[in-house]
């Protein structure tokens, strides 16, 4: 900077004013001088003029006095008159000399004066003195003489003229002088104005100069500041002022401010930069790395290390988390304790330590080319809530300036908080992760548990099944062993009885043969004779009777023979002869045989044969007849009143199972039903056993061998068919014989197949079916389990719906309760606690489905009872409302039976199974 003379604004302004004042002063002095000289000149002129006037006047007066005094003296001769003369003669000369002196600069006037003097002196010489002398001398003549000429007068006249010209000359002179003065005066005035203008000009120039110099710098400063303001933070710019005044100082001060602002700006920008960089970092090592690299970059540090406080096994350690410019991971110690070394000291003292005397063995900073010793080290503790939570060490090859140190200081001020929050966040993330892991683990475990429970359930189920099977087997085994025991006993008994039986049998048979054949013989012979009616003494009817008796007797004989053959039947040794049978004859034959019995017992005997029954049917006629007769005679035997009906039908193709079709295309179903005593269900099986009747009482009451049904059953089997029984005690019985038309006789395989058929056709029956296929049995059993005995409440106001539902569901073993509206359903629910499921229509009078469901769910607390709402298909709103009211499921109208049953299965199946 040039050491310029300091010239402040104040001095500038003062100087300006002084210059102006001086100018004014000079002007005033000059003017004053001028005015004074003018005045003097004027005074001189006035004085001179007056003096000259006075002197001339005096001289003139003196002369005139002298003249008058001369004259007076002359006239009077009185000497007293001469006195003025003398005085004047003495005095005028002084005045004249005086005047002469006055005119020393005016030779022309002097000339004139001299002329006047000469004239005066001439007068005195020629006129005055002589006359006076004359008078004194009383020389009157001379006087007269003199006055005759009177030269004096001429002189006086001349003198007067001379004075006159003198005076006018003098006047002219004065006039000229005055004129000169006037001129001078006007010159002075114009001079005054000139000075005024000059001074004004000077003042303006000075004022302009000063203000210019002040304003210019201020404007410069202002512009610079404005530019800084406009460029927003271009604090690099400085104000340059050439003048050396207060503005310069202002500029200097502003520059200083700018500098500090720039520093602050730098600090803030860098801090903001650094802060921005480590935002969003969630790991402490990443944070440390970012922080270190940023700070090192900003402070031009060449080495750096970042240590974070950790508590390891109750020991507070600072552990290295990041390094800067450290190629191999060897930079510095990996951890230190508080107070350990300078860095530990830094942590202990909680203040920044700065070193510029670096020990010889401090680590060298490496570049690609060389290794250098750092110049400065900065150890910075990062404090959070009064605790040092991290320490940063920085080293540089140059030196950390104040600004960089300040940066570090400021950066770490809030960094503690950041570290803490990052640590906190890491902890939170860790905990969250842990909790997530735990949640997942829980889910996994719960799923595993579910799987396990399912497995367990399956195992339990398996176990249960196995158990059941075992139990069953045990039971079976038990029962078998019992049976065995029983069988053993029975065997023993039978063995005993067998002997007896065989004895009985042979005895019986012998008896029969004997007892029956004997009367039969006579009956046969006699009836034959009667029938012949050789004497013609019998009516036709009686002859007919005789024929019947004869044919019955023959049948009886045949039966007796058959009884003998029963053992053969059971051993399968009975010969079957399949032949054409004219089905049209059957009704007549049966009519013939049983009409008398019917008449005798006063029973109606109805025979109906369907039209579609084939005419020619292939079977063993003898056995077929025997079965029919057996069944019919049984029917008549056990019927006290009412009727016995024989129905012959051909089975339609639809009724035939595939197995049946394989055997034959034509099947007959001959049913013998009665209105007799009937057979209790538990005896159904029994009556087909040999030598059995429903109970002992029957034997006593009705007699008979009990052989008939047994033989029928065996014969039916041999004919490829079977007999089924439908009967209830007191309700009459209905035996149905189902047999195929077998033109080619019967084979073993067919027999087996037919055994299966028996099952299919007689699902509802218990009688003859001994071997049912396992699967089918299970299905029906479960089906029965699901539906059987379940109480279903149907709530609907439409009778047709109710009827349809009721029929369909009752058919599957469900018990149906019916309510016609919601209110009724509630009443039923209150009265009956065993409802398993409700089918609830929505649109109903009195109380609709929603209300009813709400009451059942909320007031009756029946939360688990399945309620299936029956909704109209298109109305989603209905469905939602139904669900809200507490429906377990819904099903759309019109109902599809399959769907309804599916839903019922879903809701009736026990949850645990």
């Amino acid at each position, binding site marked *: 900077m040039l050491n310029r003379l300091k010239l402040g604004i104040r001095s500038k302004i003062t100087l300006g004013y002084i210059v102006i004042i001086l100018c004014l002063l000079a002007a005033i002095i000059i003017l004053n001088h001028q005015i004074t000289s003018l005045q003097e000149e004027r005074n001189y002129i006035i004085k001179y003029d007056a003096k000259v006037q006075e002197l001339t006047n005096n001289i003139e007066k003196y002369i005139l006095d002298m003249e008058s005094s001369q004259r007076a003296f002359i006239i009077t001769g009185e000497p007293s008159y001469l006195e003025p003369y003398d005085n004047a003669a003495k005095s005028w000369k002084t005045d004249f000399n005086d005047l002469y002196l006055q005119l020393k600069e005016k030779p022309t006037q002097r000339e004139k004066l001299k002329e006047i003097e000469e004239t005066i002196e001439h007068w005195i010489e020629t006129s005055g003195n002589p006359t006076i002398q004359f008078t004194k001398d009383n020389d009157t003549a001379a006087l007269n003489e003199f006055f005759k000429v009177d030269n004096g007068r001429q002189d006086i006249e001349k003198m007067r003229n001379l004075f006159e010209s003198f005076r006018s000359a003098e006047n002219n002179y004065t006039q000229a002088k005055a004129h000169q003065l006037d001129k001078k005066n006007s010159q002075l005035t114009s001079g005054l104005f000139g000075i005024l203008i000059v001074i004004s000009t000077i003042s303006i120039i000075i004022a302009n100069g000063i203000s210019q110099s002040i304003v210019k710098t201020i404007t410069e400063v202002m512009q610079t500041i404005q530019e800084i303001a406009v460029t927003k933070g271009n604090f690099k710019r400085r104000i340059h002022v050439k003048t050396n005044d207060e503005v310069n100082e202002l500029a200097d001060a502003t520059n200083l401010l700018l500098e500090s602002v720039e520093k602050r700006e730098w600090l803030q920008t860098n801090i903001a930069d650094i802060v921005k960089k480590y935002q969003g970092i969630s790991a402490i090592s990443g944070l440390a790395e970012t922080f270190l690299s940023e700070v090192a970059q900003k402070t031009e540090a060449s080495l750096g290390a970042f240590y974070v406080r950790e508590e390891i096994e109750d020991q507070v350690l600072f552990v290295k988390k990041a390094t800067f410019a450290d190629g191999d991971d060897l930079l510095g110690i990996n951890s230190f304790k508080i107070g350990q070394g300078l860095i530990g000291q830094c942590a202990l003292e909680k203040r920044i330590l700065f070193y510029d005397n670096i020990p010889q063995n401090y680590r060298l900073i490496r570049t690609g080319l060389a290794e250098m010793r750092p110049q400065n080290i900065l150890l910075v503790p990062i404090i959070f809530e009064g605790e040092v939570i991290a320490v940063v060490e920085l080293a540089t090859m140059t030196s950390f300036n104040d600004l960089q140190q300040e940066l570090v200081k400021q950066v770490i001020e809030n960094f503690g908080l950041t570290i803490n929050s990052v640590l906190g966040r890491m902890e939170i*993330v860790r905990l*969250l*992760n842990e909790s*997530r*892991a735990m*949640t*997942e*683990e*829980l*889910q*996994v*475990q719960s*799923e*595993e548990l*579910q*799987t*396990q429970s*399912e497995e367990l359930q399956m195992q339990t189920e398996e176990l249960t099944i196995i158990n059941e099977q075992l139990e069953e087997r045990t039971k079976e085994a038990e029962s078998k062993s019992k049976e065995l025991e029983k069988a053993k006993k029975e065997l023993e008994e039978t063995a005993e009885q067998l002997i007896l039986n065989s004895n009985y049998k042979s005895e019986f048979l012998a008896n029969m043969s004997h007892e029956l054949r004997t009367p039969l013989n006579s009956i046969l012979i006699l009836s034959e004779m009667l029938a012949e009616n050789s004497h013609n003494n019998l009516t036709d009817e009686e002859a007919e009777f005789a024929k019947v008796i004869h044919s019955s007797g023959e049948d009886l004989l045949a039966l007796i023979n058959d009884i003998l053959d029963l053992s053969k039947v059971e051993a399968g040794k009975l010969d079957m002869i399949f032949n054409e049978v004219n089905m049209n004859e059957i009704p007549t034959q049966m009519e013939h045989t049983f009409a008398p019995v019917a008449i005798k017992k006063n029973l109606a005997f109805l025979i109906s044969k369907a039209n579609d029954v084939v005419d020619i049917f292939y079977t063993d006629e003898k056995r077929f007849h025997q079965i029919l007769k057996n069944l019919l005679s049984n029917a008549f035997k056990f019927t006290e009143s009412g009727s016995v009906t024989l129905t012959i039908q051909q089975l339609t193709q639809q009724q035939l199972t595939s197995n049946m079709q394989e055997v034959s295309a034509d099947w007959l179903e001959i049913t013998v039903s009665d209105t007799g005593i009937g057979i209790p269900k538990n005896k159904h099986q029994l009556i087909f056993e040999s030598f059995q009747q429903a109970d002992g009482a029957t034997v006593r009451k009705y007699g008979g061998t009990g052989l008939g049904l047994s033989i029928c059953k065996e014969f039916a089997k041999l004919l490829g068919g079977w007999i089924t029984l439908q009967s209830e005690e007191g309700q009459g019985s209905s035996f149905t014989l189902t047999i195929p038309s077998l033109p080619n006789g019967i084979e073993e395989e067919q027999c087996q197949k037919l055994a299966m058929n028996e099952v299919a056709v007689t699902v509802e029956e218990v009688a003859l079916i001994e071997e049912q296929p396992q699967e089918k049995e299970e*299905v029906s059993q*479960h*089906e029965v*389990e*699901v539906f059987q005995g379940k109480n279903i409440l149907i709530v609907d106001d439409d009778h047709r719906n109710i009827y349809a539902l009721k029929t369909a569901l009752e058919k599957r073993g469900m018990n149906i309760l019916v309510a016609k509206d919601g209110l009724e359903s509630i009443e039923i629910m209150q009265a009956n606690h065993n409802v398993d499921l409700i089918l609830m229509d929505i649109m109903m009078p009195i109380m609709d489905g929603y209300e009813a469901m709400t009451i059942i769910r909320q007031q009756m607390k029946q939360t688990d009872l*399945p309620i299936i709402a029956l*909704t109209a298909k298109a109305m*989603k709103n209905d*469905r939602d409302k139904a*669900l809200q009211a507490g429906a*377990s*499921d*819904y*099903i*759309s109208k019109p109902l599809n039976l*399959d*769907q309804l*049953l*599916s*839903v019922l*299965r*879903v*809701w009736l*199946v*026990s*949850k*645990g*199974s």
Partner: protein
Amino acid sequence: MEQMQPLEQKIQLDKQTKLEIELLLEAIYRLSGFDFRQYNRSSISRRIYNRMKINNIPTISRVLEKVIHDKAFLEQLLNDFSINVTEMFRNPSFFKTFREKVIPSLRDYPEIRIWHAGCATGEEVYSMAILLQEEGLMERAMIYATDMNEQVLEKAKKGIFPIHKMQAYTKNYMLAGGAHAFSEYYKTDYQYAYFHPTLLKNIIFAQHNLVTDQSFNEFHVILCRNVLIYFSPQLQSYVHQLLYESLSDQGFLCLGDKETLRFEEVISNYAEIACNERIYQKKH
């Protein structure tokens, strides 16, 4: 020091167990190609212990021996490892939200590809099929249902579910905003509910292993619910990457209710559509 002894022993034991499990998993991988090495260890070890308990095997090494020599046992163990807990309309609110928030976006696609990763016995696949049918999208949709366990896939293909679960499924269906009667979709017998085969029309069941197999298409929706919980975090990240790459732009990823993307790297590429239901949408 004396007190430290048992602890160290325990650690030693744990190490041994770890080694045993690692060897076992390695063997399983080599023998069957199923890679459980990165599965959640605690779960896997529980499964192993469970099997050990059932079969009365004293050590994992014996299990290893059995696995190597007894093919049936290996199959059994593999079956044990795959947990197939699922139900129809599981977490009904998920399906409800799916109906409300995802379906509208799918309507614009001429063809919708959905990947059911880890479909197990297929309950959720059928649920999705029902949902799509009700929304009128079934004709355009193709559901690829995959699982690594072929046995369960066989079950899934049949669409037969135990009848005693149907009550719960019905409830779920209704809570999920079902538009019809649930019974319209199945028939029953005393034991099972049989879902209509028409539902199967646009479903492809295929064996796929998330751990070892690559993506096989680009999908508009990926459902991978309660599958990743069995994986280790690393494996989860890997699979998330796989799923991300298999999604089309603006595609939807659906996770199980206990799973979250929050800690996964890929989260930045997804927008949360329904956070509580774990439905995410891939960003552009």
